[in-house]
Structures are given as C-alpha cells and as structure tokens.
C-alpha cells in the first residue's frame, strides 16, 4: 500500500502537482488529509519532521527530544522565560502528546459566539464531529489501569480537599500503561495521527512526504500557486544532500500548527493586515513537586489520567486554571528545576518518590489579554514573545499555593517550587504562607507550555482575525488554515480533540465544495 516517504527514499528534486497541498501532518493536517483524500481529491501532505514508526523509537529522552520536538527540543520564548514543548514528526504534536482528550467546553463555545461572532460554534453543531473523531480515535474514559503514582497524588489530594476531579478520557487502544507517550508510543497504542488519520489518508491515495520543510508559499494576486521548500536528511544522518521541493496545487491548507503556521504565512508575505502571529495562547504551565514517603515512579504509567477543574473560573484580577500532572523522566525533571549544582542533584536523587503536579492558566478570555506574538527573526525562523501580565502573575501565585496544598493533602513530606533565585522547600502545610512572599512570573520560576493555540485566529468580522469562519485566510482565494492556530482563545482543556473536530468539520465542507 501507499506509504509515507522520507528523505532517504528521494534521489532528486521533488516536483508535484495535486488538488490539495497540506503543510503539516498533526492534529489538523492529518484529519484534513484523510477527509479530503477520501472524497477523491488528490492530496499531498508535506511534513518537516520524520516518519517515526514504533520500532524506531528508543524511549530515551536524549534521542527522542531532538528527533520528535521542535528546534531539537530546545524551543522557548525569545527570552527563554517559557519552555515550549511542541512536536515535529509525522503526526505532529500528537506523536508526543499525553493523550488527554476533551470536547471544547460549552462555555468556551459560548464565549466564541458572543465575543468573536462565531455563530456556528454551537455544541449541537459540533457534536457530530466530536462523535466521529471519538469513534475513529477510540477516545474513552480510561479505566484500564488505576492512575499511576503521580496521578494518584492529584486524585488523593483533590479528594481530601473536596475539590472537583475526574478520570480523563484518552485516545488509546491497548495501552500497556508504559508512560512514554511523550517520547512516542512504543506499543502503537496511542491513537496518534501517524497510526490513524494519516493511514486513512494513505489508503485513500494521499501522498505523505516526511522530512520536507516548506519555506514559503508563492502567491499570484490573491491565489497561492506553489509551496516551496526543501527535503532534508535528519541532522544526525546528514549523508544525503538536501533536495528542493515544489508542489503546485489548486487549494492550499496550512496545518503547520501554532507558531510555525503563522511563521509560514509571514515568510510568504501573508500578514492579514498585521494580525498573523498575534493572539498566540499557551495555557502557561507552572509546576510544584511533592516528595512522598512511598515510591511513585512518576516516569512509568499513563502520563495523565486525572484532572481537576475546580479552579477553572477566573476572578477580576487573575486567570482561571486547571490542574493535571506531568510525567517526570530525568531530563525533563532535571531541566524543570530552575537551579544547578548539588541542589538539583540532591533533588533528583529522590526522583522515584516525586510527584509533579501542574496548573495550566486559561489565557485569552480577558479583554486585555492579547496573548503572545509570533514574528520572524533575521533567519526567517519563528520568534515568540509572550508577556506574563499581572492577571497571569496572579494565577501563578495562587496556583503555587493550590498545588502545594494539594501535595500536602496527598501526604507529601516536602514540597518544592521551581524558583530560579530561591531554593524553596516546604515541610508542612503550616509553611504555606511562605509562598506569599515569593516573586512570580517570567524568569522567577519555571514556566512551560505544551498547548500552543492561536496566531491565525478565526473571527466573523472582516477587519479582525486571520481566517473567516470557513477557515479561509482573509485576502486570499485558496488558502485555508486547519490547525490549532485558528483558535480565538485558549480552551481551558487540552486542545487536541477540539482541533481534530474543527478540522474534520471544515475539511468535510471543503470536500463538498471542491468535488
């Protein structure tokens, strides 16, 4: 059968013509490719990252992070204040994501209708698309194993404090509870895009090219004519020379994700009145570590199986937030502690006894929250800036206390924050007040993001946003964006299922129009 091709399979320049050219093979691109190819359209998918099937995965962070993440695992905001975890592989970020699935909450859809004029974003209108992706990806409440030690801390703590919490839904089938979702699933149990919708697309005749980075789209008037890029060998295997890639198509879809998608448009001279790259949201994450008496092995077991939305509501001066946990393998843990030397070494000696709980800030809902901005640096690479404004600082401050309280309620002996300039270790809930005196915000402690959204935001009115409600880029005739960059705000839940469903809805409409 039709298969994904890689750089090693190519001997000369790539020059293709098709009906639909899709840049990016992640949550948005893979679903679009399967939907459009199944409708009989000739589809070409171009993916910068590698084709990485299960037998090629090493489960070692030192290999997987550079291979499967953006910027060899080193992406961050320009000031290094926020570490950006984002995938780069056939399957996009779903190749390395932690499989947590939620439908878009009704109150978020309601906000989009009221504030962004997106009348079609109604729960009943989207329900059939959620149903369809849930069926295809086997999304279900995951009760195959009890929560691992790390998730159990969240469950126990929330239970003891009377906070809302629940077991998550995951897109897995036959999960063996290994804990390596973030390094690619060794068991093919994660229903990531490379083993689901990309396979459907291939079966329907789509061509999927890995190792192809698209530099820009060429335009003639309001029409995009060509995707121009380069096929490159993996950096650790630079034997073969790079090859030029040109793909001509009737329709183009940018599915390169937040940050890279806006950058692709900017490199192509498409700015939508200066709005491309603006309103980039991150669900900025802060973490607190608890040291427990019993072994928790936070590196094994499904990375996320419990969440709490108890603190979802914002207040006048701070963002709302939700609680989950992060898996802790040595490299991720070692770099999350914003310190160095024996302090870090001493902490990491207790790694099997640690639990890493996280709080994710729900950004983009306040009128004064414009999110981050993507521009291009002097080398045409994306450059992300994101200001941690006062309401975000207030969230970070309160969330530290929330997580520390939760850890103690779950039985932690010590609680560590990840501050840079101070070494903070609490040994009893009576010490929680110490947290009030600490500084919060950029460079004060570790902040990361695994959920990048926006940058090509969808709005109803012409003079606003980047794409219209049909996902078409304003000011172009044949360029669409189907990925997380269209989201007008963040979501307050993990974003993958929203992106799958919106992409399927949009691609189905486009398939009807184009066939």
């Amino acid at each position, binding site marked *: 059968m039709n298969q994904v091709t890689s750089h090693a399979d190519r001997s000369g320049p790539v020059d293709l013509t098709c009906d639909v050219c899709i840049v990016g093979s992640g949550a948005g691109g893979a679903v679009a490719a399967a939907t459009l190819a199944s409708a009989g359209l000739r589809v070409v998918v171009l993916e910068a990252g590698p084709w990485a099937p299960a037998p090629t995965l*090493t*489960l*070692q*962070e*030192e290999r997987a*992070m*550079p291979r499967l993440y953006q*910027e*060899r*695992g*080193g992406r*961050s905001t320009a*000031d*290094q*204040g926020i*570490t950006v975890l984002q995938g780069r592989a056939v399957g996009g970020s779903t190749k390395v994501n932690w499989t947590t699935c939620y439908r878009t909450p009704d109150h978020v859809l309601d906000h989009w209708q009221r504030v962004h004029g997106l009348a079609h974003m109604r729960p009943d209108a989207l329900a059939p698309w959620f149903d369809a992706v849930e069926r295809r990806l086997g999304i279900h409440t995951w009760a195959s*194993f*009890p929560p*691992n*030690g790390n998730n159990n801390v969240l469950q126990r703590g929330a239970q003891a404090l009377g906070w809302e919490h629940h077991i998550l839904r995951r897109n897995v089938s036959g999960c063996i*509870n*290994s*804990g*390596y979702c973030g390094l690619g699933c*060794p068991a093919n149990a994660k229903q990531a895009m490379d083993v689901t919708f990309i396979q459907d697309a291939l079966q329907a005749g789509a061509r999927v090219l890995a190792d192809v980075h698209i530099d820009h789209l060429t335009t003639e008037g309001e029409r995009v004519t060509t995707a121009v890029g380069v096929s490159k060998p993996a*950096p*650790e295997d630079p034997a073969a020379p790079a090859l030029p890639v040109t793909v001509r198509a009737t329709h183009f879809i940018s599915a390169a994700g937040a940050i890279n998608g806006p950058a692709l448009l900017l490199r192509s001279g498409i700015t939508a009145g200066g709005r491309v790259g603006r309103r980039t949201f991150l669900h900025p994450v802060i973490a607190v570590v608890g040291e427990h008496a019993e072994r928790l*092995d936070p*590196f*094994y*077991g499904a990375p996320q199986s419990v969440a709490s939305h108890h603190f979802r509501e914002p207040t006048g001066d701070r963002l709302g937030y939700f609680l989950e946990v992060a898996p802790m*393998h*040595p*490299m991720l*843990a*070692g*770099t999350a*502690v*914003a*310190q*160095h*030397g*024996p302090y*870090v*070494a001493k902490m*990491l*000696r*207790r*790694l*099997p006894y640690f639990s890493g709980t996280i709080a994710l800030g729900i950004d983009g809902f306040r009128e004064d929250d414009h999110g981050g901005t993507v521009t291009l*640096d*002097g*080398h045409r*690479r994306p450059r992300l800036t994101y200001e941690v404004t006062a309401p975000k600082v207030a969230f970070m401050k309160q969330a530290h206390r929330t997580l520390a309280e939760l850890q103690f309620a779950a039985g932690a002996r010590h609680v560590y924050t990840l501050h*840079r*300039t101070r070494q903070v270790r609490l040994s009893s809930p009576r010490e929680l007040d110490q947290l009030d005196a600490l*500084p919060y915000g950029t*460079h004060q402690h570790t902040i990361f993001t695994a959920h990048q959204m926006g940058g090509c935001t969808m709005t109803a009115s012409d003079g606003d946003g980047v794409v219209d409600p049909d996902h078409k880029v304003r000011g172009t005739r044949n360029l669409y964006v189907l990925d997380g960059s269209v989201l007008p705000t963040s979501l307050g839940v993990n974003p993958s299922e929203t992106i799958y469903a919106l992409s399927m809805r949009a691609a189905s409409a486009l398939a009807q129009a184009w066939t």
Partner: protein
Amino acid sequence: MDRRRFLKVSAAGAATLAVAGALGAWSTPARPTHAPPDLKALGPRTWAIVMALGPVFIGPDLTDPARLAGRVDDYLATVHPRASTEVQQGMELLENRLTNLWLVGVAKPFSHQDPAQQARTLDAWRTSEVALCATIYTALRKLIDGTFWGDPENYALTGYPGPYHLRPRTASHP
C-alpha cells in the same frame, strides 16, 4: 523588586553586557583543555568554557567533563546554526572578564577562576535580576543540565531504572 526597577536594572545590565560582548577580545584565552581536533559545533574556546561550566552546573556527580562537553558539541551540531551561535555567545559573555568584573567584582575569565569563585559567579548569574542574565543562565542551564540528566549513563543517579522494559516489576507495572 517591582517591575519598573527590574526593567531599569535590566537596561543597565544589558548595556554592560553589550559592551562586554563588543569587547570580547578583552578576554584572556580560556584555560587550555586540549579540545579534541574534531569539534563539530563548539570552537576550542567554547569547548574550554563548557569544560569549566560543567562541574559547576552539575557538581560532584560530573566525573567526566569531557564526555559532557562532547555531548554538548554533538547536540549543538544538530541545531540551527544561529541557535548554536547564540548559545555560544552566551558562553562567551559568562567567560568575559568585563562581565565578571561587573557581576561579581572579579576581573578574571570564568575558566580561570578557582572552583569556589566559579560557584559564586554562577550563583550570581542564577540570582541576577537582569533579564538578559536570566535568559543566558536559563539557556546554558537547560543545555548543560539537559545533556547531563538525559545521558543514560547518569540515570542511576536519579533512581530511574531506564526505559519501560528495564522497569522493576511491581503491581502497577507487571
């Protein structure tokens, strides 16, 4: 410190760092460390700086600084050349005599300082309220700590048994 003051201090610090960068030549060659002849991304100078930084960033657990520096070199050879240049510029600033004079009052390149002074210097970078210092400290920390703790040879220091197939069998991971 309030935000206004932070920005002011940052601006003054950034100016000093810019001068230090421009006067890069005013720094003694890094302490010679017999850089391997086949470096891929680091130069002999930045190799020497990494050799000096490693023991301070990691502490006594680092028994083979050359292995760490070699792995940093391997990694940097695979990132965008601009990203590699930027992080090496950060190393140069940390090594620079003028920066050290301004930050810790010692006009000595980092790699020429004794271990106690090196520890104080890196701590000054860690606790600095100058945004650019925080940026450089964080970039170098993530590079060096990430390289060290990601090295399978060092898993044992953390009690991590290694990838899933090496796990000790327990009730939750049969």
